[in-house]
């Protein structure tokens, strides 16, 4: 069979650039099929996809620093002032 641009197998270098679109489900059905076909035969690309997923999961575990009590106190006092009807 002859390869056309839309049926030619993807290289690994191309696959890593499509990972974000793949995870967001924004590849066309044809591209998605090519992407998934590549993964069935390529362990390193499966690992790469897993690493991106792991990166996202770890980012989700980054938590903001706690707020210091004086800041909360100051804002709660402002809240009380905001609650009072303005004259």
């Amino acid at each position: 069979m002859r390869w056309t641009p839309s049926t030619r197998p993807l290289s690994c270098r191309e696959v890593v650039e499509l990972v974000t679109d793949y995870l967001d489900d924004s590849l066309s059905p044809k591209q998605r099929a090519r992407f998934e076909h590549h993964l069935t035969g390529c362990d390193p690309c499966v690992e790469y996809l897993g690493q991106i997923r792991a990166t996202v999961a770890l980012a989700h575990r980054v938590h903001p620093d706690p707020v210091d009590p004086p800041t909360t106190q100051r804002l709660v006092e402002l809240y009380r002032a905001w609650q009072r009807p303005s004259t």
Partner: protein
Amino acid sequence: MGADDAELLDRLRAGDEEAFAELVGRYQARLVGLARQFVAGPQAAEDVVQDTWLALVRGVARFEGRSELRTWLFQICVNRARSHGVRERRLVPVGSGEPAVNPDRFDANGGWAAPLAHWADAVDDRLEAAAVVDHVRAAIDRLPHPQQLVVTLRDVEGLTAKEVCAVLSISEANQRVLLHRGRSTVRRALAEVLDP
């Protein structure tokens, strides 16, 4: 984990001060972090966030819950920060960008020149997972500003692509490019730590 946002919002509508304090505890640092991406100093960021809280208190009766409270707060915060205009920056990808993976890792046919170290499945269970999370945080902090914003909102906060576009007023295409570059860079930083 305390009450969810919807419950806190109901209590806030009823003028519940503790609900307000709880929302501050939950969002203050995240909002300041977001505001700091747009304004010049910590004080300006605190001012923007204070305005954001005021807008919430003033607008809480009208808020219909069509979007999540979190998305709404982030959106107000970004809009206020932008109107401060101290260092308005365009949130568009610049140039063609670095490839996701160093080109040296591929052979002439675009295949992997050497197998990848395996850490994707193990990283969450590692004893030092907390330290790994610190590396991720540091890597995100080093990203260029537009990528940092998108990765923070998408991956740290867990907003959807649509929500990020709404909060930052950017196109879906720009959101995707910025997320892709940012995530790829954070993965590379992680790979350097996990597979030195």
